[in-house]
């Protein structure tokens, strides 16, 4: 129970802050997008490790589904 409350206490305020950020969209010209183009801002800064993690969680948990069309296929018992 403590772990669940800890998770919620830690993560929920961050997600609520993100929601507030999304409430106003701004027109951002290309020359102001330098921060967005930084490597650490990529959806997956390390695609090799992201692929491995996705494979492990797909094998060890009941859920699956990511925004990609390829991959898959393992016995995973």
């Amino acid at each position: 129970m403590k772990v669940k409350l800890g998770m919620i206490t830690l993560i929920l305020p961050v997600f609520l802050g993100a929601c507030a950020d999304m409430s106003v969209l701004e027109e951002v010209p290309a020359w102001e997008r330098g921060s967005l183009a930084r490597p650490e801002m990529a959806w997956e800064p390390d695609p090799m490790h992201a692929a491995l993690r996705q494979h492990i969680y797909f094998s060890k948990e009941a859920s699956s589904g990511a925004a990609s069309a390829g991959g898959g296929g393992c016995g995973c018992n």
Partner: protein
Amino acid sequence: MKQTKSSRLQALTAAAMALPGISAQVQADAPPERNEIGYHYSQYQEDRAPESAVATGSKSRYDIGTHQFRWLGPVNEDYSLLATFDYEGMSGASPMGVTKGADGKPLLVMSGASIEDTRMDLNVKATRYFPEGNASASLGYSTEDDYNAVNLGVEGEKHFNNKSTTLSGGVGFSSDTIEPTQQSGTVRPTSEDKTSVTGFIGGAQVINAVSVIQTSLTVTMHDGYLSDPYRSNDVRPDSRLGFAWNTRYRRWMADSNAALHLDYRLYSDDWGILSHTLGMEWHQNLDDSLRITPSLRYYTQSQADFYVPFDVSGIAGEQSSDYRLSPYGAITLGLAAVASGPNWRLRVSGERYYSDGDFALGGVDVENPGLINFTLLTVGMEYLY
């Protein structure tokens, strides 16, 4: 020479475009300018099953070493090619079922001898770039001692509003065959097939100069043999329809010289599984060439409709005591360090995964004794030429 406003903007834009990585996300879609080759080695180690949780069989769980190879390069002005190859060697024992102990508590029935297997997975993806988007086609083949799978997919992206908005979509198909290793004294199928079809649509939006968001909906249909042939009493439906809603948010924190990543996934399927996955990463730059990333992931799932905490022999109908279909929650703590130069990148990372019935959002009456804890350690490098 006096610069006009237009020429100043052009100069600033050109400078911004010269930043590493910017061409991939902000400028017109184009193949990478250089070839990129990478190698990672990862060691995945599950904790041994506790003595008190095992009725019979080995207490060792899976130990997997994974070699990953990746090559990405331009083919010409409009095309790129991506090839990945994974080689895994695995050993350990696997739960065959769950029985009731003398005190009424569940106990694992583990396979006796250690299982040895290797897995090879080759994927190739070709991408065509357009001024306002890209389109890809991929083909993959995966093989184990008892398992073969072929997959193919097509996907694409289209940019709008000066590339502030991106829509994406794709479909994938996989055909799998399992030929279980036979063992005297057990009845296992000799060969079974499964087909899977996946489709997704998504959209990404630049919110402001420091934050972006992406959301997508994925639908997956499985049809065929979906049971686990190595479990004693495992009969699952022969189809499965699942939905996953993924949302990812990235924010640059200029004051901290760091990037915040937030990910959320809602998953639901017609087996009765409902899950939530929350992910948080903090990519902290220590200087121009060193970054550390602490991460936290929380996962919780409900049980499948046909999940049983104990195996019941001699009854008709669907049942499975697989811990992966049981109700539980899991937490992953991670730490990664990435050092980089003009044409290279080194990575060292470690993750620790804990799963427990008490971590689940809903109540768990009988926790499955097969829940795992594991450690994942990775070293890797990439080189651009």
